[in-house]
């Protein structure tokens, strides 16, 4: 919202020597965020009034003229293509150094002396659009330059001075005052400034109608319309409003239209209370405020044709809706070129209904955005008073012939008791009671002291929801006293034990293990899953929760598994990388096992899951699989939690027929590790690469209370590696080989390690070559070659016997 400081000064006497930076800072700290302070005249730097002495033809261009222009001290030649140039005319001259917009478009550019078609030109004679004044001086056609002959200003006068634009424009962040309906006009901000600096505030006189004739107003829904003032005014006409009024409306970002409309906008910008005028000849019989009939039709001022909902509040006459209450007038019944009499509306509408209607038709307006903040009905008085004064000023002949103030629902002012003791404790500081009373009083609070503290009556304009409890009063006192005037205090705390959060720490340990030890990259995905991947990875969507208003129709389901989105991430990265490992830790949601951990709600099952993808070329699935299994297999050891095992219990739907494992903890399945089947990969859109996916229920993991690593003495005598290669049937599993090798309890055989597996050339079909490494050693002595050989031979014998191993020829 933009505010004119001159306008604010109508209501509060701000000293002329007030430091504006300070004012903006104080407002920002205590009330609303001031985003900008602009000296209006700065926009018109080096733009002055010039008087054309003579218009000469341009030797080299038909459409250009050379104007001899008096710019005050001297006369200059300016080349110009304007269509309305005449000797004796006063024009706007942008001197070198001024900023203008060429034809009103693009970024402002700096004017420089230039040669135009071979003729030297000093600056530029401007069209109104080029100096940002088109709203105040509309041009009849494109090449018309701005004519200021009517101004009482001599050549050389800065245009800002000639147009009386010596003003400061404050730009307020609207978001910082959504809770303050009282601030959406100049008067409200003036009240805050008055309270901040202890300055007097101008009061409005209440309007007393002269006529006793009652205008016929009916309110059919008093909850939606607590108050409606209707006044029939004759003796009017459609004409431009005075320049000063137009100028103020323009300064704060609206467009002057004509005097009747300008009055309503001016009143709204001043008081924050929207008003409206109808052409009274178009209002049939009376005005009624009611909810629309479903399907009722209304054409708005902006020509939108609406089919109304029964939830819309409308202003209607005997024949039907004439305006969308609090949002916008109808096209047919508002001010028309021939309007000579109006019905002035000053009304109060319930906020939420106005918001619903404005959003329903995507038609938010200056009026609706104010109403939806909850304006108090008492403010109608201010707006009425000001509107009537302006009508009388602009139309001395005007006459109010009928009037009605139908005030059905009076607003209840909030009353609050505040203990001084409480206030002191919360503020951490004692503020003198007279200071408290004065500050609150300046903001409109009625304060009376009693034994323990004060009784406060909240002003109507703060009683629509903004202020209702003593904490609100404390805030009012603190912000007016100045948040910066409170000394910093240290945090006092009691120490009752160190923080020990095993589960929280485990999540972090796992993530850091994956990222830093296993070189995987953490990713984040949205909670909604793309349907494509859902269909590829899940047999059905039973038990999957969905959004009522999803981001897109194909992203309706929310995560019951992390894998669909991880697959999507694979698709995305496949283009740039041919090998990568990613993981995500996030919540999944299931439409089952509802819990009531907290009073007042039942929530669906929600768990923390870990999802991983190990992605690489399809030519070495074994390596890919082992990469994944290594990372997941070693995780319990390096993150200090209870270990789990891999078993084949139930194949995941999305998994390859052969390459899959379940992750088991204490007999319960807590996750899967498997190769994504080719079919599922293609359905997800993964074109080339293969992926081993892992999904794990992190809530099932059990962190150790402390570290369980145990020191083992280093062997005193050397351990010997002994590699052994042999052929076995290709269906024999490593687990069986290991079990067979280790089956006899031989103290010298320390371990059997997997080295390599080979199938292919030189290996008979149906067989595979396995290389293992035997770790052989003794605690008592250094073994001789013979002794080592003996152990190895016994292992080989066992392997031959149990799993049919044969030494490769």
């Amino acid at each position, binding site marked *: 919202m933009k505010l004119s400081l001159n306008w604010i000064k109508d209501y509060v006497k701000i000293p002329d020597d007030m430091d504006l930076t300070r004012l903006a800072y104080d407002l920002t700290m205590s009330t609303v965020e001031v985003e900008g302070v602009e000296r209006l005249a700065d926009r018109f730097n080096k733009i002055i009034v010039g008087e054309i002495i003579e218009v000469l033809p341009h030797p080299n261009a038909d459409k250009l003229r050379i104007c001899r222009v008096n710019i005050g001290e001297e006369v200059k030649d300016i080349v110009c293509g304007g269509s309305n140039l005449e000797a004796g005319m006063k024009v706007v001259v942008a001197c070198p150094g001024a900023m203008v917009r060429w034809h009103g478009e693009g970024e402002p550019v700096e004017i420089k002396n230039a040669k135009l078609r071979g003729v030297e030109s000093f600056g530029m004679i401007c069209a109104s659009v080029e100096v940002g004044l088109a709203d105040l001086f509309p041009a009849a056609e494109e090449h018309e330059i701005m004519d200021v002959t009517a101004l009482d200003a001599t050549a050389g006068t800065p245009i800002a001075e000639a147009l009386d634009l010596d003003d400061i424009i404050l730009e307020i962040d609207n978001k910082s005052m959504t809770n303050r309906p009282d601030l959406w006009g100049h008067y409200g901000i003036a009240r805050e400034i008055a309270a901040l600096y202890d300055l007097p505030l101008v009061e409005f006189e209440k309007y007393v109608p002269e006529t006793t004739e009652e205008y016929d107003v009916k309110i059919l829904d008093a909850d939606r319309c607590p108050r409606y003032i209707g006044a029939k005014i004759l003796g009017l006409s459609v004409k431009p409003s005075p320049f000063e009024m137009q100028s103020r409306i323009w300064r704060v970002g609206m467009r002057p239209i004509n005097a009747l409309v300008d009055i309503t906008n001016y009143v709204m910008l001043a008081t924050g209370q929207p008003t409206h005028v109808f052409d009274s000849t178009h209002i049939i019989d009376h005005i009624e405020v009611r909810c629309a009939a479903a399907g009722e039709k209304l054409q708005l001022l902006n020509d939108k044709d609406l089919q109304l909902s029964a939830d819309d509040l409308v202003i209607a006459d005997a024949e039907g809706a004439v305006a969308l209450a609090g949002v916008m007038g109808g096209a047919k019944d508002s001010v028309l070129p021939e309007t000579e009499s109006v019905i002035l509306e000053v009304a109060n509408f319930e906020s939420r209904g106005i918001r619903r209607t404005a959003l329903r038709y995507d038609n938010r307006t200056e009026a609706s955005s104010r109403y939806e903040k909850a304006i108090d009905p008492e403010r109608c008085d201010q707006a009425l008073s000001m509107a009537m004064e302006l009508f009388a000023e602009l139309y001395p002949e005007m006459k109010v012939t009928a009037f009605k103030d139908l005030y059905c629902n009076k607003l209840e002012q909030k009353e609050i008791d505040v203990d001084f003791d409480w206030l002191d404790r919360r503020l951490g500081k004692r503020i003198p009671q007279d200071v408290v009373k004065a500050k609150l009083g300046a903001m409109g609070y009625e304060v009376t002291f009693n034994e323990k503290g004060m009784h406060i009556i909240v002003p109507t304009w703060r009683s629509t929801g903004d202020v209702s409890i003593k904490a609100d009063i404390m805030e009012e006192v603190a912000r007016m006293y100045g948040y910066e005037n409170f*000394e910093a205090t240290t945090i006092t705390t009691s120490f009752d034990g160190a923080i020990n959060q095993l589960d929280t720490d485990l999540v972090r340990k796992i993530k850091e293990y994956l990222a830093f030890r296993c070189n995987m990259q953490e990713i984040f995905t949205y909670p909604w899953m793309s349907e494509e991947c859902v269909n590829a990875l899940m047999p059905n969507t039973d038990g999957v929760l969905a959004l009522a208003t999803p981001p897109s129709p194909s992203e309706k389901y929310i995560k019951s598994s992390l894998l669909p989105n991880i697959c999507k991430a694979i698709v995305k990265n496949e283009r740039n*990388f041919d090998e990568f490992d990613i993981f995500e830790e996030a919540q999944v*949601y299931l439409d089952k096992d509802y819990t009531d951990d907290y009073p007042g709600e039942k929530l669906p099952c929600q768990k923390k899951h870990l999802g991983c993808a190990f992605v690489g070329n399809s030519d070495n699935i074994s390596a890919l699989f082992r990469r994944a299994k290594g990372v997941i297999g070693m995780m319990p050891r390096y993150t200090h939690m209870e270990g789990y095992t891999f078993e084949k219990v139930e194949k995941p739907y999305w998994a390859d027929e052969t390459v899959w494992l379940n992750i088991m903890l204490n007999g319960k399945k807590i996750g899967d590790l498997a190769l994504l089947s080719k079919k599922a990969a293609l359905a997800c859109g993964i074109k080339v690469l293969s992926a081993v996916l892992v999904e794990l229920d992190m809530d099932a993991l059990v962190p150790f209370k402390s570290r369980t690593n145990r020191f083992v003495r280093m062997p005193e005598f050397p351990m010997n590696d002994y590699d052994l290669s042999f052929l076995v049937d290709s269906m024999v599993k490593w687990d069986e080989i290991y079990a067979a090798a280790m089956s006899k309890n031989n103290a010298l055989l320390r371990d059997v390690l997997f080295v390599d597996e080979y199938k292919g050339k030189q290996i008979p079909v149906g067989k595979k070559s396995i290389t293992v490494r035997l770790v052989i050693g003794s605690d008592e002595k250094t073994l001789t070659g013979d002794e080592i050989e003996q152990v190895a031979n016994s292992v080989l014998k066992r392997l031959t016997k149990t799993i049919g191993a044969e030494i490769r020829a």
Partner: protein
Amino acid sequence: MKEKLDALLKEGAAKIEAAQTEAELQEVKGALLGKQGSVTELLKEIPKLDVAVRPEMGKAINNVKNLLAEQIEGRREALKLKASEIPADFDCTIPGFQPKIGGLHPITQMCYDLNDAFRSMGFEVFSGPEITSEYYAFDNLNFPPNHPARESMDTYWLEGHDSGSASDKLCLRPHLTGDSVRYMQTHKPPYRFVYPGRVYRNETTDARHERAFFQYEALIVDKDFTYTAGKVMIKSILSKVFGQDVPVRMRAGFFPFVEPGFEIDMGCLVCGGKGCSVCKHVGWIEIMPGGTPHPNVLRAAGLDPDEYTGFYVNIGLDRLVMMRYGVDDVRLFHSTDLRFLKQFN
């Protein structure tokens, strides 16, 4: 002769020391001890000498000869140790092998930095469920009925759970603040905890707006906690995260679940508060809302607001990370694009 010999020894020693390669040394050796070497030439002159001095001079020359030979061998050893066995064309400008490096998401990194800072000040870390009832998302937090935020255009309601009472209606949490009530309901005061997490808003996205984003909230609840102590807390945390003293200011702000509410600004670190494009020329950057928990929120947690008060802040993690690295599009955080994510490892 004697002087000649002394000079020769001195000169020879210098030449030996000056030799930088074995080849040079060999040359020096030839010049001194070779067939036409200076020492050899001297030896040739002995027969011309007086017989009486011959033995003495012969001895002296041989002595010099031996000394020089010894020095040459010493120098040869030194040069051998100094020399590299690697051919001289070895290129040290070849880039190193890149270790394969993974990493945490930049938001996780920032979150952990904050966790560490808060932990050091005695805060617990808490996390709540992402699907919440309307009751915990709004009612408990003092949002009036029909508050605009409750509408489906702002909140993601769940299908089949989007009507009925506040306890029946379920949504993806629109903010974290509801979790603070959950924590307080299940723990004993005084409280000191943080509850980071992801929240969801149904809105149109652009470079500055996302449907899923990260918040980091911290709450202290105790008897008679003043807002100025809160300011000290924020200053400590930010100074820890940014590694330097950060000026902080608190100004009037409004949020339904706090009273009074503040907008908290930190001094712009780019310009040091002088004003630059990053801080829109005001020297301050708005980083978080905060305030005293609204009495109704404390009541929802089962506390007497006359007895307890506190301090709350809500740090926008995405924004803090964007500031930390100069990221200009918030949507990148959920892009899963490894080209982006790997930049922060």
